[in-house]
């Protein structure tokens, strides 16, 4: 029963979700060794804004400075190729195809990353003099993200044979979940400086998520049934897909109500394509319309953009665009708080899907398709649907917070390893996610989706986006990230 989950530990070696935890924890513990004075993660290549190409990247750790730019990129490739290929082997992917695809993804990612950090594209206005610039776009790290996404979309829509060639390695959910585990380290480090603010974002995110859930689902379900005349099963799966956490929710709901799997598959195709549209449109829109509401924008993004990959990607672009915008007005917000607001809201949504699917399963089995005494639903279904990468995220977050509280004298040493893992490693996985996500997004799949595609567009524009923004505004208004030191 290979594809069946029965024991609580089933899937630990074979699912992308668990492998995000394993990759996350490997580097988490490797980074912690800096407490003992050993930097074994400093080989990771780290790009920076450049006007001379020779300074475009360097090893993250001082102890590894001898590697230089190309040496560190090569070691980064070797280490991550080995680790991801081991993961691919256990996930029963075709390792040979994965290796070729991963290598292409890595090369494309680093090429666009380095190009995107060129000073004319990335340098903020207040650093033009430092780089000798007469003009610039001041996009910060956002330039690399936008380029990566653009290149991915070109591959996915215009160079389809190449997209098929790298498809085995295009696992944006795996990559982004790994990055989110590393973000847990970042949130832990940020909590050391601003614990109250971090917990305020988490708490407000939880409240906002519950409120949004209670509004989105019933409104869109009613709309799907009454206005678009969708059958009950289609309406429920569609509703969860667009209202909750995208593909995961569509699968969870489809399973919970025992819908034919094709329903979840069709809805998933829509979710993936629309998530890309949201990712392209919303960061620029929010940062232009509400430049002084960074955390509201981040949280609204978390509630609106479906799939973890697209949400984290949109949050990362929003973070860069809003900080670049604020820098132009002389305000230097600390990096990643806006991204954290987007991801934290999404994580609450992800965690709740197991419970929601369980409730739906009970309603379906005991009310809708009632057959007394015949079929039962196990509570283990909640665990099977729980997003496991959240465990890695929370573990990393609380571990660093605990270190700060219990063992404050080692914070500086711990930060050496942590800063490598939470910054260049995490950003690299964000970048790879962008390229991979673009490569698997084929807009032509919208063809033939008819009223389902129309309903998605209407629900997104008329219900989800406005309500998400309103709820985010109610719970997060006035919150701004701490100023960068």
């Amino acid at each position, binding site marked *: *029963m*290979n*594809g*069946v*989950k*029965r024991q609580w530990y089933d*899937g630990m070696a*074979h*699912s*992308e*979700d668990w492998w995000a935890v394993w990759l996350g924890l490997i580097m988490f513990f490797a980074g912690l060794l800096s407490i003992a004075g050993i930097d074994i993660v400093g080989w990771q290549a780290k790009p920076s804004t450049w006007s001379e190409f020779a300074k475009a990247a360097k090893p993250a750790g001082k102890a590894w400075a001898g590697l230089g730019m190309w040496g560190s990129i090569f070691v980064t490739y070797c280490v991550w190729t080995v680790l991801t290929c081991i993961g691919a082997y256990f996930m029963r992917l075709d390792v040979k195809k994965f290796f070729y695809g991963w290598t292409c993804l890595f090369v494309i990612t680093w090429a666009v990353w380095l190009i995107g950090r060129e000073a004319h594209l990335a340098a903020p206005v207040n650093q033009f003099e430092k780089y000798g610039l007469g003009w610039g776009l001041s996009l910060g790290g956002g330039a690399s993200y936008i380029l990566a996404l653009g290149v991915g979309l070109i591959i996915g829509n215009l160079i389809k044979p190449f997209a098929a060639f790298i*498809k085995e390695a295009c*696992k*944006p*959910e*795996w990559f982004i979940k790994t990055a989110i585990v590393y973000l847990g380290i970042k949130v832990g480090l940020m909590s050391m400086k601003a614990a109250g603010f971090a917990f305020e974002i988490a708490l407000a995110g939880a409240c906002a998520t519950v409120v949004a859930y209670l509004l989105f689902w019933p409104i869109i379900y009613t709309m799907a049934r009454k206005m678009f005349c969708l059958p009950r099963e289609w309406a429920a799966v569609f509703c969860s897909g667009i209202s909750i956490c*995208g*593909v*995961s929710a569509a*699968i*969870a709901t*489809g*399973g*919970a109500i*025992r819908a*034919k*799997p*094709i329903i*979840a*598959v069709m809805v*998933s195709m829509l979710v993936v394509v629309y998530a890309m549209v949201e990712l392209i449109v919303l960061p620029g829109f929010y940062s232009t319309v509400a430049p002084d509401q960074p955390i509201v924008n981040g949280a609204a993004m978390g509630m609106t953009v479906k*799939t973890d990959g697209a949400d984290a990607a949109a949050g990362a672009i929003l973070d860069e665009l809003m900080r670049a915008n604020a820098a132009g007005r002389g305000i230097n917000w600390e990096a990643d708080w806006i991204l954290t607001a987007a991801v934290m809201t999404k994580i609450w949504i992800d965690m709740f899907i197991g419970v929601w699917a369980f409730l739906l*399963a009970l309603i379906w089995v005991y009310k809708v*398709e009632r*057959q007394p*005494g*015949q*079929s*039962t*639903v*196990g509570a*283990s*279904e909640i665990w*099977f*649907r729980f997003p496991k990468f959240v465990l890695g995220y929370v573990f990393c977050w609380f571990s660093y917070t605990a270190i700060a509280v219990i063992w404050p004298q080692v914070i500086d040493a711990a930060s050496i390893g942590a800063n490598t893992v939470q910054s260049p490693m995490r950003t690299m996985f964000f970048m790879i996610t962008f390229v991979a996500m673009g490569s*698997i997004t084929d807009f032509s799949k919208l063809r033939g989706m008819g009223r389902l595609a129309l309903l998605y567009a209407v629900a997104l524009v008329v219900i989800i986006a406005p309500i998400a923004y309103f709820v985010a505004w109610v719970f997060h208004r006035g919150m701004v990230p701490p100023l960068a030191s």
Partner: protein
Amino acid sequence: MKSDMDMVIVHDGEKWIASNEDLVVEGRTLPELDACLARALRETGRYSGPKVTVFMGFDFNTIPSWIRQYGSHYFNRYVHVEV
């Protein structure tokens, strides 16, 4: 929950199919599948108790591979069959 019998369930686009090494049953809906299962179990005469608990785990490997990164579980169900 303990079961007397384990089966793997899939959907082939038209009907649900539950199977193990000894038995294959089909139905266009789950109630139809359960009825078919009850008939098949009665015919085998292998189970003597009043009720048989059957575990059905959906084979997630039948879901398209590109979706599997977003989720790894469809559903499990326990069916109580009166034999």
